[in-house]
């Protein structure tokens, strides 16, 4: 389990992290979402020791993260970075060696990951000669080449085409199923919703919500209905515990306050006229996210 415990960090007058705590067990894909400047990148850099926290601690399997542990973390920084003039294979071998792999292990691992990410035929080319999409794949290979147990990836999907997204998603899933812990940040919330076992929403340096997407939906929030009654759209305006938040064609989108039961709404709709449609709606992660960060 990777644990971030009460991390605090300021930059001058700016508070980047304000007591961030989160936990990612092995075998879990943890999506880390938040608006720009919420503290995601700062948190990840602290996990890697690239940045020191003012206070708080990062632990892996119960003990503080040190150089030995960091050698088993795979990191993809928000700002991509490789030596532009180095050859792809040499680069991956070099990074694996820096993480403590032997020459033979590093070479074998570089070949495996180049093949897995579809850049094997570019092994002898300089990084700068590759397209941006392929450079991105090499960057991922660089994060994975030492077979890390913990993956910390900052926006790993940005810049990838849909095929690249699928390749990366399956590669990461495989790593996690093999027992790795994965934290990644993304602004592509549909992707996060699709891939993640758990999601953390960070706002102003604190975790404001976390859990599975299912838990976030049910967690003390209004349920949502789409209801259409023929000939009227005014029937719900006076209804207690119900708020009209939107219209979807002729239907009203209703948020139900805590304690309001869907069958009360159904009864009211039936009284108002002929019922055309009555559909419970699952809010998307994007909607949950907006609520969480705007609340």
């Amino acid at each position: 389990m990777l644990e971030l415990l009460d991390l605090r960090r300021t930059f001058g007058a700016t508070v980047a992290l304000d007591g961030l705590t989160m936990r990612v067990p092995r075998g879990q894909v943890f999506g880390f979402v938040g608006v720009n400047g919420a503290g995601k990148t700062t948190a990840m850099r602290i996990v890697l020791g690239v940045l020191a926290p003012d206070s708080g601690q990062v632990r892996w399997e119960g003990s503080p993260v040190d150089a030995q542990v960091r050698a088993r973390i795979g990191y993809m920084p928000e700002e991509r970075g490789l030596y532009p003039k180095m050859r792809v294979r040499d680069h991956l071998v070099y990074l694996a060696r820096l993480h403590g792999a032997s020459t033979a292990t590093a070479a074998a691992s570089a070949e495996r990951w180049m093949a897995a990410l579809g850049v094997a035929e570019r092994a002898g080319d300089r990084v700068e000669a590759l397209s941006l999409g392929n450079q991105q794949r090499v960057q991922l290979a660089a994060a994975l080449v030492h077979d890390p147990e913990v993956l910390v990836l900052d926006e790993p999907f940005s810049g990838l085409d849909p095929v690249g997204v699928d390749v990366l998603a399956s590669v990461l899933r495989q790593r996690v199923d093999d027992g790795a812990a994965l934290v990644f940040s993304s602004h592509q919330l549909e992707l996060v919703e699709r891939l993640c076992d758990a999601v953390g929403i960070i706002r102003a340096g604190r975790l404001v919500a976390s859990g599975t997407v299912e838990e976030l939906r049910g967690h003390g929030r209004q349920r949502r209905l789409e209801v259409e009654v023929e000939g009227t759209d005014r029937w719900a305006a006076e209804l207690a515990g119900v708020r009209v938040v939107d219209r979807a064609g002729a239907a009203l989108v209703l948020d139900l306050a805590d304690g309001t039961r869907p069958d009360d709404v159904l009864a009211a709709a039936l009284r108002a006229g002929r019922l055309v449609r009555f559909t419970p709606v699952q809010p998307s992660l994007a909607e949950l996210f907006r609520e969480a960060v705007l609340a």
Partner: protein
Amino acid sequence: MSPTAAGSREPGAGGFWATVRLVGRREFVERVRDRSFLISTVVSGVILVAVIVLPRLFQGDNTVHVVFRGPDAGAVAAAAERQAEAAGLHLKVVAPSTSAAADAQRARNGDVDALLDGATVLSKDTPDPALLGVLEAAHRQVLDAKTLAAQGIDPAKVGATLDVAPLRVETATSSDPRSGQRRGVAFFATIVLYGQIIGYGFWVATGVVEEKSSRVVEVLLATVRPRALLTGKIIGIGLLGLAQLLLLGVAAVTAAAVTGGLDITPDVVGVLGIVVGWFLLGYSFYASLFAAAASRVSRQEDVQNVTTPMTMLLLVSFFAAIYAANSPSSLGAAVLSVVPPFSALVCPPRVAAGTMPAGQLVLAVALMVLAVVLLVRVAARLYEGAILRTGGRVPWREAWRGAGR
């Protein structure tokens, strides 16, 4: 489709020096493979060898060609040859042509160095004073011999009597006949030393900025300590500079030896050893400074700006070294050859000239080592504080405070 981790787990990253070795080897190997390195090595080698060989080709050896005419031409020529040999001048007697006018023309054109016709010397430019002295003496010797012979004295005896060896020269400053060639070696060595330190120091600077501008530094620092990265980079590039220096040194000494300008004696080897030693010290000093300065900026365009103080310091050292080579016994040369970092360039020419007492040399090396040790620590801290800060130029003060954050 994903590879598995089975059996590929290593026990974690190596220690500081294991990392330094990996980083250093990358710097060395990647740069050796770079075509620009090969080209720069060949170009410097060619320039250096050319500087050594070309003057000898144009100047030729110190052979002078002289035509002798007149009634006593044969006797004067023979006397001149003896005189020239004693004076260290290689005189070649050119057979006269059929007419005096043709020989005069050859002298005016400079085809021969001089024409001695009776009591007249004809040449294109003012003749070399040494040559003129030889001709003057030979002419007088023959005339004197004739005069004496006319009075009944045996010309052979006269010749022997009048053949006087030239004066032997002794000076107060240097009686060491090999100091000249040592100083020649030191002169070239100073130029090469300056070139190597500034070139490789600058390479360290651009290497630091390359890592910053390409952002690869954040990937590296996730597993490598900044000091190990800095140390590896400086050592790797320094070994490359050392290898190139040795290569250039061998090329230059070989060229000089082959063209006959240099005898490879133990003291020449000693001077070369001093040069290599000072390269290591000087490079360590400046490379640390270059690295610390470069870590403040994120774009290659800014490297020139932040490294200006170091290049100025090197340039001043270089001129001080030229000055010291010309007046190795002066007080200024004595002071600058001991004070770091000037000593890196000023010390070798003084040692070569034989004017540096062993005590001063030991002091100079000790002070420089001390300076390097202190500077490496300061530079490492500045580097650590600035290396992850991107954007504009990081002020020195913030770099100093930023370390470990």
